[in-house]
């Protein structure tokens, strides 16, 4: 990459922030104190390794999300194994790259189930890949915790087993063996709209790309807006691959739109920010966690990211446990470019390992232990009782919050 030479400076800034945190007192949301996967370890005589499969798009368009997730899982596994693992047995994470391609993901999952005999699976990053392989894991009765992919239908299906777009729709129920620590799309939209309402936004415009994700997000937003009484001044679309959206933004500008809530992917978000700058349109940008992707700033220029809002469940200042986790990441990898993905990966791994301590290495018992887990503490804003028989997502809209970009970091918005 061309534009990345200030990592050392950033590390220094983080260290400084951490030293100052006890003085000023960090915010109180999320878990208190330090969180460690060592807590899930149990002592014993030892034995053969227990395997867990990790599937992510480590190369390809979702590499930055996948890399963060992988590092979070790595740190958790090391803490766990160093503290004794499962009754003295080590847990081995097997990482396979699906290159963000569904057909590769399916192959990886078959390998996990048939060859590696994994007790559970963590992943994936891409929603399409999850939808492709989940019928396989359900059939094999292998528990899956999805740390990143956010599409509603990954976890929730209708009576016929078809993925749904609205988890609160009548008849929607979770897939038996599938859980998530990721931020479900419909709750993300709820969160950003609730923020808009509470902040008193009165000149809102909606933008979305014409992909399945963008159109679905817009439909969900419309459903929620109707019940909320927010007024939308204008709605505009753009195609995936567009770089100059000045035509649409000019319309937003002349409609008097002051806040744009946008549903799309990193490259197009960067194009939107640059197009707005081109026509001198100063507008408050907000959107789901796609805006937390550091790739947007890399493409658009970090200065255009200043003040942009994104839905989050973790920021490096969201709790003392979060700040501590960020330090752990910096210590192990010298960088933490996309902290939220690392946190979600870490929490997914910690959930599975904590449940393993109760259930032992048996897939079906592990599933039940995950579903009934209580007293859990993670580094993201995950609640202590994450799941129930009817609820397989750990993060509700109440657990998510809106974060803002400030001086190159994503921090809690006021």
């Amino acid at each position, binding site marked *: *990459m*061309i*534009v990345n030479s200030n990592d050392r400076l950033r590390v220094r800034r983080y260290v400084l922030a951490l030293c100052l945190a006890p003085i000023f007192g960090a915010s109180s949301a999320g878990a208190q104190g330090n969180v460690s996967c060592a807590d899930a370890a149990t002592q014993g005589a030892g034995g053969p390794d227990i395997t867990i499969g990790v599937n992510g798009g480590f*190369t*390809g*368009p979702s*590499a*930055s999300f996948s890399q963060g997730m992988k590092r979070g899982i790595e740190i958790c596994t090391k803490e766990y194994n160093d503290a004794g693992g499962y009754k003295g047995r080590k847990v081995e994470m097997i990482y396979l790259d699906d*290159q*963000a391609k569904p057909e590769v993901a399916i192959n990886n999952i078959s390998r996990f189930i048939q060859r590696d005999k994994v007790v559970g699976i963590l992943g994936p990053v891409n929603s399409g890949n999850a939808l492709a392989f989940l019928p396989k894991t359900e059939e094999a009765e292998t528990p899956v915790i999805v740390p990143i992919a956010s599409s509603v239908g990954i976890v929730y299906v209708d009576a016929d087993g078809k993925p749904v777009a609205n988890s609160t729709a009548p008849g929607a129920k979770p897939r038996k063996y599938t859980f998530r620590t990721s931020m479900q799309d419909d709750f993300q939209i709820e969160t950003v709209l609730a923020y808009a309402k509470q902040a008193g936004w009165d000149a809102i415009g909606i933008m979305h790309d*014409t992909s399945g994700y963008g159109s679905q997000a817009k439909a969900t937003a419309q459903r929620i807006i109707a019940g909320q009484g927010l007024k939308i001044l204008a709605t*505009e*679309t*753009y*195609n995936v*691959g*567009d*770089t*100059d*959206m*000045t*035509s*649409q933004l*000019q*319309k937003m500008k*002349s409609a008097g739109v002051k806040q744009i809530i946008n549903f799309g992917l*990193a*490259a197009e978000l*960067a*194009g939107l920010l*640059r197009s707005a*700058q*081109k*026509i*001198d349109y100063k507008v408050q940008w907000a959107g789901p966690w796609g805006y937390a992707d550091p*790739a947007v700033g*890399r*493409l658009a*220029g970090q200065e255009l990211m200043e003040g942009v809002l994104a839905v989050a469940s973790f920021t490096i200042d969201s709790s003392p446990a979060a700040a501590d986790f960020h330090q752990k990441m910096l210590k192990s990898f010298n960088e933490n470019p996309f902290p939220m993905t690392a946190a979600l990966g870490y929490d997914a791994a910690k959930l599975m390992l904590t449940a393993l301590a109760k259930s032992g290495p048996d897939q079906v018992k592990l599933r039940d232990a995950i579903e009934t887990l209580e007293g859990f503490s993670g580094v993201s804003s995950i609640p202590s009782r994450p799941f129930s028989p009817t609820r397989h997502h750990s993060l509700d809209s109440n657990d998510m919050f809106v974060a803002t970009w400030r001086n190159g970091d994503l921090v809690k918005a006021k």
Partner: protein
Amino acid sequence: MDLASIAEMLAQGLPQAIVSGLVYGSIYALVAQGYYVTFSTTDTLNFAQGDFLMIAAMLSFTVLGGLALSGVSLWLALLAAIAVVVVVLALMGIAVERIAIRPLRGIFSFGWILSTVGVAVILRQMAEIIWGREHMRVPSVFGDVPIRLNLGTVQIGILPQEVFILAASLGAMIAVLFFLKKSRLGKAMAAVAFNAPAAALMGINVRHIVVLSYALSSVLAGLAGVLVAPVLFAHAHMGTLPGLKAFAVGIIGGLGNPVGILVVGLALGIVEFVVAIFNASLRDAVTFLILIAILAWRPMGLFDKSGREKV
């Protein structure tokens, strides 16, 4: 939508749409000139032209990025990138003619269509392997501060790089036109285009002319790639749509008429952005709707008087 609101939308959106449209349109025209150069001399063209543009953008990312990081001034880095792109793309053009077009022409007449589309796919996959599949930002020599014009109620903005795109692509097209009309080599190319056997009898080496036309065509795509890299983000699939749109420009303008290609290229760019004012989802589709309509009405293109059918 009533007429008054349409008029108001246009009044506010049109100036920016024209400016943005001219920039993108000039790129379509520049790539399409490449189609013209080879089609007029050989009746074939390179369907991988858009991916040649992509390769050039990737090369400029590597050269510009590498040199800029090692402290060379951006201007020097840009000149180096252009030099590398001209050499590499010329060689790629020669290779495509030699490997994917010449051997197939004798076997069956449309083999080159399939083989050049194949080249496009190969290039895209190669780029994914070499540069990865993430979007990459290529720095502009002129910086990222837009130039803004205030027209009373309406403001328009243009990036300095976009001004450069417009100027450089128009300049390149004019240079190519002069080369074709005035230079001895250009005249030789025209002679081959008009009647290859007769040109051969006049002592013109037809084979050399064909190779030259492919090299020239590829260099034009390469130049387009260097120009657009800072404005479009560089990635393996960035060339697909510009390549197709340039092809549409060639067909609509008439593959035998470089001035027609220029006019149609600029016009289509503007149409795209005007359509986006009303419905942005139609932005990419409108080019091809126009293409289909024009083919039904004038299969030889708007500006081609020769009457040859293009498709």
